[in-house]
Structures are given as structure tokens and as C-alpha cells.
């Protein structure tokens, strides 16, 4: 409905720069790949081929940071619209998430390129890829609800989130695999809701290397908790959001 329309509207902006949606992650993957295979060559990081391994996780991660960073400011940015909007307030968040998701989907050909370059093709478990997208979307929805409503009360939050996202990037197995983490602290690494969707993305290519079931359980539970918390926080703060508009 309206989201679609909003999307279309955003789209017209993107179409001019569609190429950029591809070039940016591709370039970034290349740089990281170069750094981690050529420069730090001997220490094996992640799984092979590394280029593919990297681009598979980095695209959704891109979506994740963009979506969350933008939703932190969504209510401040759309003040004027919010003031006359008779539509559900959540729509603004959904809109941000959907637009960033479209960007993510449009940049998927990068993975195709990486597959061609490395001549690695996925197994049947690739069907879990869309599941990962859904899980990530729900997780982001919960997180975005929490962050965007709290950002209304604490305006500094938008900046904190940015720093937080950067820290998360290194704490999440994007550049490396779960198996790179020392056995001892692995369960703690799984205390990260993003682990689950990323695991789902990779499972199609490296079925034998997939994260252990306990990791999935921990991570999924966290996703669910984040979602529930998000909905609750948002309900509490919705009057406040409107007041600040």
C-alpha cells in the first residue's frame, strides 16, 4: 500500500545511481578481501573462497547498519509529515527498513559476481537464504522500533547507535567465521542476534561448517526477545513520539 508508494518514490532517486548500489559493496568486499587474503595472507580467516564468504555476509550487514542508523533518526527527520499523518506510526520504520532492504536485494548480483569469480556454487541449503532475510527483517524491525522510539527521548542516541554499529561489525562474524573464534568464548559470540541470519546465509555454501545448533537457538531466542521488546517499548513511547513531532 503506502509503503509501496513510498518505495517507488525513493526508487526514482536510486535508479540514477543503481550502479552505485552494486559498486559500493563490491568495492568494499574487494578491499577487505585484499587486506585479509593478500596482506594478512598466512592467517586463514573465515572460509574459502574468502571473497565469496565475505560478500555473502557483508551485503546483509550493510542493510543492517543502514536500516538501523536511518531508523534512529526517522521520527526527527519526518517530523512535519508525522504531525499530519493519520497512518500507523510504525509505517515510518517499515518504510525505512523496506527501502534499505530493496537496496540490499538490488545489490545481490554482487554475490553472483563473486560466485562466478570464485567458481563456487551453492548447495541445496541455499533455500535457507530467504529465511535468513526474513529473520533479519524481523530482528531489524524489533531493534528499529526500540532505537527509534528511544531516540526521540534521548536525541544523542542516533550518534551512539552509529558507534555501536561499528563495534558490532567487528563483534559479528562478518569478516570471520564462528570457527575462527576460540572454542571457549564461542557461546558468548552467539549472544548476538545477528549471528542467526548470517549463519543462514552461509549455510548454502558451506553446509558442513555451519554453526552449532545451540548457537542458533541462543541467537534466535535473542532475535525473538529483541522483537518483543521493540514492540513493547514502541507501544509505551508512541504518545511521546507524537508529542515531539
Amino acid at each position: 500500500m503506502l509503503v509501496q508508494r513510498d518505495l517507488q518514490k525513493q526508487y526514482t532517486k536510486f535508479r540514477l545511481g543503481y550502479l552505485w548500489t552494486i559498486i559500493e559493496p563490491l568495492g568494499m568486499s574487494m578491499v577487505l578481501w585484499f587486506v585479509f587474503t593478500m596482506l594478512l595472507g598466512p592467517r586463514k580467516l573465515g572460509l574459502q573462497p574468502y571473497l565469496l564468504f565475505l560478500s555473502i555476509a557483508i551485503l546483509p550487514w550493510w542493510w543492517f547498519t543502514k536500516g538501523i542508523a536511518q531508523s534512529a533518526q526517522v521520527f526527527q527527520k519526518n517530523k512535519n509529515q508525522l504531525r499530519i499523518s493519520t497512518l500507523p506510526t510504525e509505517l515510518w520504520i517499515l518504510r525505512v527498513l523496506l527501502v534499505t532492504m530493496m537496496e540490499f536485494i538490488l545489490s545481490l548480483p554482487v554475490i553472483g559476481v563473486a560466485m562466478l569469480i570464485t567458481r563456487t556454487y551453492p548447495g541445496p541449503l541455499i533455500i535457507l537464504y530467504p529465511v535468513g532475510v526474513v529473520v533479519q527483517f524481523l530482528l531489524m524491525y524489533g531493534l528499529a522500533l526500540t532505537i527509534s522510539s528511544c531516540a526521540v527521548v534521548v536525541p544523542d542516541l542516533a550518534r551512539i547507535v552509529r558507534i555501536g554499529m561499528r563495534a558490532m561489525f567487528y563483534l559479528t562474524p562478518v569478516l570471520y567465521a564462528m570457527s575462527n573464534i576460540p572454542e571457549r568464548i564461542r557461546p558468548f559470540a552467539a549472544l548476538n542476534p545477528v549471528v542467526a541470519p548470517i549463519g543462514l546465509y552461509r549455510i548454502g555454501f558451506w553446509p558442513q561448517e555451519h554453526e552449532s545448533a545451540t548457537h542458533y537457538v541462543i541467537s534466535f531466542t535473542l532475535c525473538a526477545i529483541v522483537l518483543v521488546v521493540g514492540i513493547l517499548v514502541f507501544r509505551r513511547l508512541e504518545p511521546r513520539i507524537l508529542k515531539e513531532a
Partner: protein
Amino acid sequence: MARVHLTPTLESVVQFEKVGVRLPVRQRRRGGGRRDRLRRMAGEVTREEIWNLRDASFDVAEGEAVAIVGHPESGREALLRLAAGTLIPDEGVVRRRVPVVPVIGVGRALGRNYTVRQNIYLVGGLLGMTPEMVVERLPKIVKDSGLEGMVDKYLGDVPGRARGPLAWTIAMATEGRAYAISEAMVVGDPTYQERCWKIIEAKRADGVSFLVTSERPAHLLRFCERALLLDNDTILADTTVEDALERLPLLKRHKHDVGLAQEELADEDDDELL
């Protein structure tokens, strides 16, 4: 999920029952973000909220035009927003039988970076029109706001004086059965204003309800038959427009600068990643 609930069985169009809302106090002078934060640490700036409207109870009947008379900070805008459902009360209930279209700064919701067509879709959608309705009414909106031939121009390139009429026409095109209007009852040059009057007076005659505030007493006198006089967050009287306007100068102005103020946030670049 929907924010605005309707009560189809309600007898009046809008009903306020002991409604109150608190709004955050805004400091009149606001420096940049850092200075603001420093002041807050120093305890100079508080994030307290004060009552902007309390214990408001009234009914608006079908086809009635009610003027909300009061000083700018008396809570009149909050009252309109509560009626439209773009603000949620802290106490009491607001019931409405039909959606109330908020005509409260619609012009500000228009985006310069979108084309006229996109703006119509956006604002129309915000005000409750479905895409089909927009498609159907688009030609008429464009014609009535005098923007023929500029549909796909960016709004920034369209003469500034066309924005008011555009916002106004979109709001009226929603064909709502109730409106909450702040300031812009009629817009544009005098001839255009006359047309606006015709349109809203026709709506009145058709049984559409209105809640109106305006800095121009003449507009209220011409259009409304009933007035709510607001003083420092309470409804002082439910009376005729003449009476309310006469008593208004006797009321003290509000000392606080409460919520709903204009303040633009600098657009920050959020494309920074990693």
C-alpha cells in the same frame, strides 16, 4: 495497529471526554546540540512536561463549525491534533465517528525534492487517501491548485505561492467528513480565497464538521457558530464566537513555550558505514 480508532456508533462526530495532554517544555533559546546538552547537564534545561490541555470535554455535532479561541500557547493546536489523532492524550478519551482530517501545517509536509505528483501521493496518503483515490482525484487537485502542466516538476521549481493552494487542495480532496484546521482556512490571493470559502462553505452545508483555529477573527466570525475559549490549558467557556473573541484580550498569555514549535534538524549524512 492503526493509530486512529473510530467509533461508528458515536452520536456526535468528535467527542472529548476529560482529555488532557502534557507536552514537553521547549526553551525559547536553543543553541546547537552540544550547548543544549551542556545546559542540560548544568540543570538549566529540563525535560519536564507540563499540562497543555486538561479536562477538556465537549462534543462536535454533524455540520458544526467550532472555533477554538485562545492565545497561541493555550493548547489550541494540541486540541486540534488530539481531535485528528496525531497526538495521543495522557488522560481521558477522544472518540470519533469519522476520520478527522488534520489540516495543521500540511504545507510543511510537502517536500521540495519530490515532484508535484509525488507530493500529492505522499500527503494524500498521510491524510488517509488510498492510492486509488489519489489516482482518481489527481487531475482535479492539480487543476484546482493551479499547477497544470507542472505535475512532474519538482516542487522546489514550482512558484512558492503555489504550495499553499496545493496543500489546501489535497486536504480538501480527502473528502473527509470532519476537519481540524489550524490557520489555513483559506489560502492564496483574494480571488483564490473566495473560491476556498465557496468550497468549505459547500462542505459545511453538506454536513461536514469543522474544528478551526485562526489568528484572523474575521475568518472565525464568518465561518463558525460556536467557540471554545481556551485559557492556560482549560476550556473556559463554550459559547458564541463573538463572545469568545471579546473575552480573548482579557486573558493572560502563556508563559511557557510548549511543544509543537518549529525547529528543523540539520540533515545528517547517514551513509557513513563500517
